[in-house]
């Protein structure tokens, strides 16, 4: 009995996943639990495991397809079984691929415009090898014949995909002559540059490239995590009123505290862990900073879900440490570490990447002195931590000495909060790190 494997739902907000890589092909024998494919949500990537044992009968999607959750991804069973009932309606399908440029034939836009590029590439007017279903106008056929172009290979933009004169014109104006070998690659969907490297600018097989390619650059589609980050950053800068306050703190107390912990045989914590702890401590006194700005409403949260910006091979990720306000320093440190590793390994769960109420981002280890963090909306504050620099400081006795100073930049949404309360939050935060690093908020309550 043939069994389909579906695209699992990855978290509440995920509607589709990109199938980034197949690990099996038709005809392979698989067991339950075997990895079938690598899938990627807009936040992280996962292995798609088999829910059945048997032979892979058909893959319904191609690598890089965007597959809706709960759709059938492939079907497993015994060879010869009919699998038509499992075929999803909207899959690209590997057994019956759509002509590459066929989508353009449904519109009335000339093929050249549908792929208009700022760079010198031509539209993929040469589409599938099959003849256009809606035929070729006599005028187009005559013109193509005169120019030595095979009208059968053009993609039509006339009614119902009919090849009309403008399709021939578009083909002639934008395309170099293709070598015989290059033409075969054009039928595979590759595009020629405007000027090929062959005789009199003829495009050779080695010139043919993926649609949208740019000379002298590696071009990849913006999708998955990159797309999410792009959308989110634009939304952030366009939809909020960002104001950044710069400050710094004397790291001497933090450094002494870390040394003492080591001397006392306690677990190692990083400056970043102490900074996280100080945020929680300061938020206890300034809860208005722990909020979401929702346009017509402002939600101030009772608990802190601390987002930590992590640089992963897939791009920037912000895992969230839930319920951080009640954690001990050790727990907080362990939790941050665990989430960061999961991000870097690609095993982070989608639900761990949402729900933050305040975000910490640290570029100090990369030698950055100061930067303006970009808000992670609807959060209203993000604290950026820079690197250590040696700065002169007047001590209580009036003498000048050099201390390790760490820079801070707090970006707030001025829609939700003003500069002064944000500055007061920073003061509390700095005071905590300079006097009681690592300690719980209650120990310093009332100091303000």
């Amino acid at each position, binding site marked *: 009995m043939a069994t389909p494997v579906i695209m699992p739902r990855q978290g509440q907000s995920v509607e589709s996943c990109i199938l980034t890589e197949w690990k099996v092909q038709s005809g392979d024998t698989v067991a339950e639990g075997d990895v079938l494919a690598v899938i990627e949500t807009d936040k992280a990537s996962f292995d798609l495991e088999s829910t059945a044992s048997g032979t892979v009968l058909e893959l319904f999607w191609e690598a890089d397809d965007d597959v809706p959750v709960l759709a059938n991804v492939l079907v497993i069973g015994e060879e010869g079984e009919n699998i038509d009932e499992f075929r999803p309606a909207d899959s690209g399908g590997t057994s019956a691929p759509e002509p590459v440029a066929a989508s353009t034939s449904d519109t009335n836009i000339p093929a050249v415009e549908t792929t208009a590029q700022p760079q010198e590439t031509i539209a993929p007017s040469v589409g599938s090898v099959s003849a256009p279903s809606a035929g070729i106008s006599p005028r187009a056929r005559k013109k193509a014949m005169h120019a030595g172009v095979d009208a059968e290979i053009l993609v039509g933009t006339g009614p119902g995909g009919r090849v009309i004169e403008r399709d021939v014109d578009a083909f002639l104006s934008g395309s170099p002559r293709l*070598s*015989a*070998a*290059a033409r*075969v690659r054009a039928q595979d969907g590759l595009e020629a540059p405007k*000027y090929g*490297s*062959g*005789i009199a*600018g*003829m495009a*050779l*097989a080695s010139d043919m490239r993926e649609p949208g390619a740019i000379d002298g650059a590696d071009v990849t589609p913006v999708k998955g995590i990159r797309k999410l980050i792009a959308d989110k950053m634009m939304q952030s800068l366009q939809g909020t009123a960002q104001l950044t306050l710069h400050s710094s703190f004397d790291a001497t107390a933090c450094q002494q505290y870390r040394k003492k912990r080591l001397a006392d045989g306690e677990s190692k914590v990083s400056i970043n862990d102490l900074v996280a702890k100080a945020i929680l401590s300061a938020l206890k006194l300034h809860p208005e900073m722990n909020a979401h700005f929702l346009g017509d409403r402002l939600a101030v949260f009772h608990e802190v879900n601390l987002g930590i910006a992590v640089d992963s091979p897939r791009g920037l990720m912000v895992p969230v440490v839930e319920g951080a306000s009640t954690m001990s320093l050790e727990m907080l440190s362990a939790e941050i570490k665990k989430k960061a590793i999961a991000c870097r390994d690609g095993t982070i769960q989608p639900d761990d990447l949402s729900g933050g109420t305040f975000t910490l981002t640290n570029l100090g280890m990369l030698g950055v002195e100061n930067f303006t963090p970009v808000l992670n909306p609807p959060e209203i504050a993000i604290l950026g931590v820079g690197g250590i620099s040696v700065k002169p400081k007047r001590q209580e006795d009036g003498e000048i000495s050099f201390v390790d100073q760490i820079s801070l930049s707090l970006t707030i949404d001025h829609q939700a909060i003003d500069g002064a309360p944000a500055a007061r939050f920073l003061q509390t935060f700095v005071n905590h790190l300079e006097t009681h690093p690592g300690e719980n908020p209650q120990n310093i309550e009332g100091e303000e």
Partner: protein
Amino acid sequence: MKYDFAVIGAGPAGYVAAKKAASAGLKVVMVEKKKLGGVCLNEGCVPSKTLLQAAKTYHHAKHGSIFGVEAGSLSFDFGKAHAHKNSVMDRMRDGIAGLMKKHKVEVIEGEATLVKGGFSVNGETHEAENILLCTGSSPTIPPIPGIEAEHIVDSTGILNNETLPENLVIVGGGVIGCEFACVYASVGVPVTVLEAMPEICPNLDSEISAILRKELEKKGVTFVLGAKVESFEGKSVRYNLEGESKDMDADLVLIATGRRPNVSDLGLEDIGLDFDPRGGVKVDQRGATNLPGVWAAGDITGQAWLAHAASRMAEVVVHNITGQKDIMRHDTMPAVVYTSPEVAVVGLTKEEATERGFKVKTGKIPMAINARYIAENPGEEGMCKVVLDADTNRLLGVHMVGGACSEMIFGATAMLETELREEEIAEIVFPHPTTSEIMKDVFMAVR
């Protein structure tokens, strides 16, 4: 004086560039220190081909009996052959001079040196917006003790030798060595070729090289492979073979160990020109050097060492100067050895294609299956070999030895330039009966 385009060297790169640039409306000057025509016309292609034809004519006369032709008593007047050679050269030089005049290219006789923004010659400095360096190459003379002796000549010297020696020893079994071996052996001079590598013409497909070697052996050439020449003493040549020193007498010795780019005395270091590791002027695919407005083409770049490659490189340079996109495609550059039989190749060998990552399939057939070939070249071995990309059936290389195959290699070049596949080539009609049909038939043997 201020010129749009200055050409330094009047060889196959120089005069082609000068004519082409002048036709495009540029004010052009060409400087030459010796004679118009460069190495090709004066010390290379043209004189050697004239002598090869003389040798071939003698050979045909001597071996005509299979066709029923008996020439009776036969003699060879080397001096007359040289006279013909000289008349061909004179005529071609006049042709170039006329061409330059017709296209209003100013020709200056003298040695040019480059200066910033121009060049100086005969004590005068001229400005030039663009300069093409195409001073060619010279034979290399390896540092072998005794090599200065009078009976030891290079390829330029042997072209002026008008007496047949008692025997000829050629150091170097490359293209030049093989061509002169063919000339002298065909007219009855015992020839020995000492080649340091395990096979002659090591850049060719090894099967093609082996057939060429066997055919030259039939003409009376003795090849000593793996031989390293140690010294010359009097008329004796000492060489090392498998660790053992051997001596042989030589009436005339030809040093044919290669060529080097002519880059000295041009002031190139002074203007800061970059060189490639082989000593040639470093150029990109367009022929541009590291200095704006300074271009180079032909042997001076240390690439190809072929007159037709030099002309093409020059054409690419002029196209780029006059705003037409063009780049050099060395992969489709044909190469010929003008021996009897000739060798003609274009594209990649099987080894080169494999190295580039192609999945390769090859096909080869003997020339002897071709009617026209055996009618005209009785008893001569020949071969046609093709290299294809197994994934796309695209032709990657054609390698031929036999008859006058140089005359049909351009067909293979056109196939490579347009990246034809087996399927398209199958539809090309080859006239019958011609030797070129071998290029159609060879695909039947592809696997």
